[in-house]
């Protein structure tokens, strides 16, 4: 019999630590795209709040904690990171299970901002991009979702098929930062 073995998106690639910056894989139990039905954003937000304790975040914002996070992903759309979605949400939203579709990593440490500054075309410094802020943007040539989850910590999501490129690009930037001493 063929024995299939489940692999995580970044298996064999992470964890990684260069200088003061570390890159680790996050393994949320579930990832769900929650898209509010047309004109039903507020109703969807109420449901999300009663089911998961978080309202729909405003554009460019994320709410919640490591266990359960709602990350703004687009117009009237959030990615629920962590818990399996409550079925009650289906009354006001379209739910799509994306649990195996994304590589989720955490970049952490003094210098995390400088690492991302080498790859991302937007200003992610603490003064403008605070904890709870999120952005759909690019990292190198990839579209990603970047969320500040701590003073010096970012959660980065990229398509699972791009996991190796994601880690490679970040590793090169981490090494180039460390080389400057």
């Amino acid at each position, binding site marked *: 019999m063929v024995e299939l073995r489940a692999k995580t998106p970044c298996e064999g690639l992470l964890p990684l630590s260069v200088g003061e910056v570390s890159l680790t894989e996050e393994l949320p139990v579930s990832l769900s795209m929650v898209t509010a039905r047309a004109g039903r954003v507020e109703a969807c937000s109420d449901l999300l709040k009663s089911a998961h304790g978080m309202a729909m975040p405003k*554009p*460019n914002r994320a709410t919640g904690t490591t266990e359960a996070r709602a990350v703004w992903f*687009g*117009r009237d759309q959030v990615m629920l990171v962590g818990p399996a979605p409550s079925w009650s949400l289906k009354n006001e939203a379209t739910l799509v299970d994306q649990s195996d579709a994304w590589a989720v990593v955490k970049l952490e440490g003094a210098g995390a901002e400088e690492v991302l500054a080498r790859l991302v075309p*937007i200003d992610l410094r603490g003064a403008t991009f605070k904890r709870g802020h999120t*952005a*759909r*943007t*690019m990292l190198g040539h990839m*579209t990603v979702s970047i969320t500040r989850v701590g003073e010096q910590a970012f959660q980065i999501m990229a398509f699972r098929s791009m996991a190796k490129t994601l880690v490679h690009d970040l590793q090169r930037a981490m090494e180039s930062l460390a080389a400057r001493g």
Partner: protein
Amino acid sequence: MRLTCPHCGERDLREFYYQGDAVALNRPDPDATDVEWDDYVHNRDNPAGETRDLWYHEGGCGAWIVVTRNTVTHDVLCTELASDLKEASA
């Protein structure tokens, strides 16, 4: 060039994909004349001055955006969500 996405704010050009004239918002009726359909499908102005284009925020939130800009001065005059314009005209 930098464009302001109505959701995400001002972003670098590399995040956007250029689709072309914002004519897609004004699709003729199915029974419109051949001349109108010919215009819609094939004929485009090439203005030296103000133009309205559709852009896609591909490396970002995925919104379709109508950008009004000036091809002579390179000023970006206005950016609006295509969905908002469509709803307003419906």
